[in-house]
Each structure stands twice: as C-alpha cells, then as structure tokens.
C-alpha cells in the first residue's frame, strides 16, 4: 500500500515536470517555430531536409534518411534501449534449471496439424501464412528507403511470425526454430552491425556513423550511394535486434520465464 503511495507521488511529480516542459514547446505546426522558420540568418532544418536530403543520400523517403543518417546516433541508442528492455525482461523473468515446478500441460506435438483435431484449421492457416508474413517482413526491412517501413517495423513483423507459430502450436516449436541462444546472439549481432558501421567510418578517419567515407568499401558510384547502402545495412542491424528481443519478451512473458508450454 505504502509503495503504491510512493509510486503515485513519483508518477505525479514526473508527469508534472514533463507537462511543464511541454509548455515551452512551440505550437503544433507553428510556422514561426525555429524548426520550421529557422533562426535569423539561417535556413530552417526541416526546409533543409525536404530540399537537400535526396541529393545528400539518394534516399527518397525523408523519414528514413533522417532516422538512419542525420540522427543515426540517436537511432542506434533507440536500438540499445530495445536491447536493454529485452535484457531486463530476461533478468527479471527467466528461471534457469527449475524443472520440477511445472509439468508440461500438453503432450508435445510434432507438427502443426498432429494431435488435437480442433487445431487443424488454425495450424494449417498459420503454416500457410507464416512464410508470407516473413517475406513481407523482409520486404518492409529492405524497402525502408522507398516506402514506409524499415528495421523497427520489419523486425516486429518478423517477430510476429514466430509468435504466431508459438500461439498456433506451442512455445517449444517456435523455440525449435529460434532458440534462446540464437535469439540472444541475434540481438547482440544486430547492435554490433549498427555500431560496426559507425566504427568502420572512424577507422576510415571520419566521424562516427558518417557513412559517406564507406564508398571505397561498398564500391558505390559516390558517397551518396554509400550513405544509402549503409542505411540499409543499419536497418538490417536494427531488424535483427528488434526481431530477437520481441520474440524473447513474448517467450519469457508467456511462459513465466520457464520457456516451456507457453500459453
């Protein structure tokens, strides 16, 4: 009870500070705000993105070019936040080496359609849909430059396909396809890919995540195309981490950290 009182006080104070901070913001869509009108003597930043981002990066989707290039440092730590959330879930929920607490509720089925006849419809539907969903997820990841999408969205769709397998059959058959060691590895590899692009730029004597200098390695026509291709690489890294962590969160939450049976 007392902890709830303290939690409420903390929430009210934090919310009050945040609301107080909001009052300093310019109005929504205000044409005279610094972001839209610029400071005296300089063009505004949004004007710059709209007019120059295609020439800088050869990426038609301005959102992606801002997200993965102009503020790539921020996006890298957004990915790290997701990674940290997954690690927190892992640290809090995961129970290791306790087999006695719960017996498996169902006999493990070897395929989607075996066993319980009422699962045939759902199993068959999922077996038909999962490849399509995964293909679409890869499209969303790879096409983030040209249409809405990118690493975060595609990663979530890819993770959803594994969650559907876990829902349609049981958690074990999803874990057979993406095991715990593998998803933890994939989550780390994703961030390493992202940070690796940044460090590579530093190795080539430029700033962290300044993709233009990667042109000799990527063998592109110019620094602009190098930036475009590096964005794709970075998005793939994001997708790795998001896929692994989303599935890890589902697996741990649905089985109370035992990674058995699931829902």
């Amino acid at each position, binding site marked *: 009870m007392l902890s709830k009182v303290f939690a409420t006080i903390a929430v009210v104070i934090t919310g009050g500070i945040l609301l107080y901070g909001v009052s300093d913001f310019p109005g929504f869509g205000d044409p005279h705000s610094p972001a839209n009108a610029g400071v005296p003597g300089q063009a505004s930043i949004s004007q710059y993105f709209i007019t120059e981002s295609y020439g800088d990066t050869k990426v038609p989707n301005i959102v992606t070019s801002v997200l993965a290039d102009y503020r790539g440092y921020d996006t890298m730590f957004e990915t790290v936040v997701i990674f940290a959330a997954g690690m927190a879930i892992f640290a809090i929920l995961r129970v290791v080496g306790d087999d006695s607490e719960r017996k498996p509720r169902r006999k493990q089925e070897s395929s989607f359609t075996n066993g319980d006849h*009422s699962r045939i*419809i*759902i199993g068959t*539907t999922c077996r038909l849909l999962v490849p399509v969903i995964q293909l679409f997820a890869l499209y969303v990841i790879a096409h983030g430059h040209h249409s809405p999408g990118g690493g975060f969205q595609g990663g979530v769709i890819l993770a959803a396909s594994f969650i559907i397998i876990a829902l349609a059959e049981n958690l074990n058959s999803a874990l057979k396809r993406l095991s715990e060691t593998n998803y933890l590895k994939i989550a780390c590899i994703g961030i390493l890919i992202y940070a690796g692009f940044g460090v590579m730029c530093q190795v080539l004597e430029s700033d962290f995540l300044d993709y233009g200098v990667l042109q000799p390695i990527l063998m592109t026509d110019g620094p602009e195309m190098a930036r475009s291709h590096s964005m794709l690489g970075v998005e793939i890294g994001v997708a790795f981490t998001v896929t692994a962590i989303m599935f890890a969160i589902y697996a741990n939450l649905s089985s109370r950290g035992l990674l058995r049976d699931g829902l």
Partner: protein
Amino acid sequence: MIVTIISVIFILLGLLFFLGAAVGLIRFPDFYTRTHAAGKGDTLSSLLVILGFAVYQLKDFHGFSHDWPILLVILKLLAVSLFIFLTSPSSTHALMDAGWEDKVEPEIGKGRPNHLNDDCGKF
C-alpha cells in the same frame, strides 16, 4: 462508366453486409452467434469492398503496353483479399474454439433440440 457502376455496386453490397454484421453483433443473443455474425459478415463485406476497388482500378486501363502498373495494383488488392479470406474466418474459429474450451454456454431457445450432450458436442 460501366466499370464505375459495377465497382459502386460491389462496394455498396459490401457496406450492406457490413451493416448486417454490425446489427448481428449487437442483436444476437449469445457469444457464438455474435462471433458468427462478425466473422461471416466481416469477411464477405471486406472481400466485396476490395473487389470493388479492384474493379474501379480498371477504369483507366486501355492496353497492356502502357497500363500494366494498374494490373499490379489489382494483383495487390486481390492478394489483400486472399489474406483476409484466409485470416478472418480462422481467427473467428480460434475465438469460438477458445470460448468452447472455456465452457461458454450457448443460449438455446425453448423447444429447440439440444445437441450439447451428443457425441459431436464432446471434445
């Protein structure tokens, strides 16, 4: 012109079935019949509306050499309708199955035959 009329007819039919699904969702007596109305009506009406969109795309179609991107749009719309055709009924089925496993009692009117204790009713 005729293409527009056909597509409008499709879309209006779809909206009619949407109305039926919505009325059924509110007016039917128990969980199973309501889910039935939502599942059946939703699937058919979404299919009809998307088919109407697909037919409407044919409005600007004059020949394969110039207008093949329109066929691509139609293909995508048909893929969406196929997806709905697969997912919507099976999600309704999953919902009903979950309700049945959770022992939600169907409402049976007076004088109606009760098959709940027959062989087919057991699981």
